[in-house]
């Protein structure tokens, strides 16, 4: 599983970091997404799928 985050599209809502904190973080200022783990393990699959769905700017994609 590979996660792709489009920094330019990201609106810094932080939803992803709240749902899957092992995979996503935000920078401290604007709050744009930081990908902590671009190839997360299967144990993260559910959380990452929820994060992808919940992102309010369609900035996240999952390639399985």
């Amino acid at each position, binding site marked *: 599983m590979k996660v792709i985050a489009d920094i330019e599209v990201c*609106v*810094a*809502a*932080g*939803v992803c970091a709240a749902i899957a904190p092992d995979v996503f973080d*935000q*920078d*401290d*200022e*604007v*709050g744009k997404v930081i990908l902590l783990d671009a190839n997360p393990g299967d144990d993260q699959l559910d959380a990452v*799928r*929820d994060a992808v*769905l*919940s*992102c*309010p*700017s*369609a900035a996240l*994609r999952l390639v399985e």
Partner: protein
Amino acid sequence: MSAAPSNIVIVGASAAGLTTAAALRRNGYDRDLTLVDAERHVPYDRPPLSKHLLTGEWGVDRVALKTEADLASLAVDIRSGVSATKLDVERSILSLTDATDLPFDRLVIATGVTPRVLPESAHLAGVHTLRTIDDTLALSEELVAGRHLVVVGGGFLGTEVAAAAIGLGLRVTLVNSRPTPLERSLGPAIGAEVAALHTGHGVELRTGPENAVQSLLSSAGRVTGVLFTDGSTLNADVVFVAIGASPTVDWLNGSGLSIGDGVECAPDLSAAPGIYAAGDVARWENPAFDESMRVEHRTNATEQAMHVGARLVDGAPDAFASVPYFWTDQYDLKLQVHGWIPGYDEVRILEGSLVERRMLAVFRRGDRVVGALGVGAAKALRQWRQLIVDRTAWADVVGG
């Protein structure tokens, strides 16, 4: 509503409607799923319309909510270019503009809001509102350098469009009947900073109660200016009107659903057995604030859709509790707000200012912290968000 759903229809295929469809699939719903939307474009996102699309930085394909492959994998029947005109709750049938009737066993209402317009302005050339891709392209065509744009309304949309037009080389006047822009939502102190930001970029402000717009002036079917209630006038080549929006509920007349300012829902977002609403159109009692609200923010649309997508599958009456979030881009600054601040009693700027490009302000209603605004302060905001979720008393964290 006992039998498991097998024929779900969603009206509105934008942020809330499309996310509901995706959430349904994600939750294992594999039966019939139909989306109906008046739009002809593939489902797209709205916040970039007044930002990157209007300035021409992004093309139309960049605002799509899903790639074609992702859309195809949802296996939904999207009826685009078709509007719902009538809902028969008793018989569970939706009437459409293409003269067909669509039966359903569960329905999701996600029809968003429609911009308000000034009286007798609908057919005037040169007058614009902004909600759709087509609106954006029509406005963008008229934003030609050197022209004078008058923006009526000093809210988020009006200020964003003013900023975009300045960047495109227009002369811009922002007209607002409040003393400062964004004052209605963020208060006078922050409003004054927003005003300084805009005048610093060259926007002319005509603000305050004497600058309430009464009507538009026109000649030969094209707008030529605005008339204020005090009798004065201002010439314009183009007028952009951003005076708010109303829930798109006209098609629900006679349905028997409870309609006020939006579709009135129970705390679980249901409007009737098997019928839910999500997004800008939905009004519900939010247990996080013990208040009835309707939230016109992008993140709320997704969050409500995720909730409805889960309730449709599990049938549980869980309440939707949420601390809303929104952002607005003002030039190169991103203002971020967590919480629910309408009707706040006090706002306090704790740190910084817009000029310093770092700012933190908090809002109180009653004895509780209900909102936090930040610029360049994402980390601090996250802590304030948690305090709002935890219903923290103002006296405990801000003081008297």
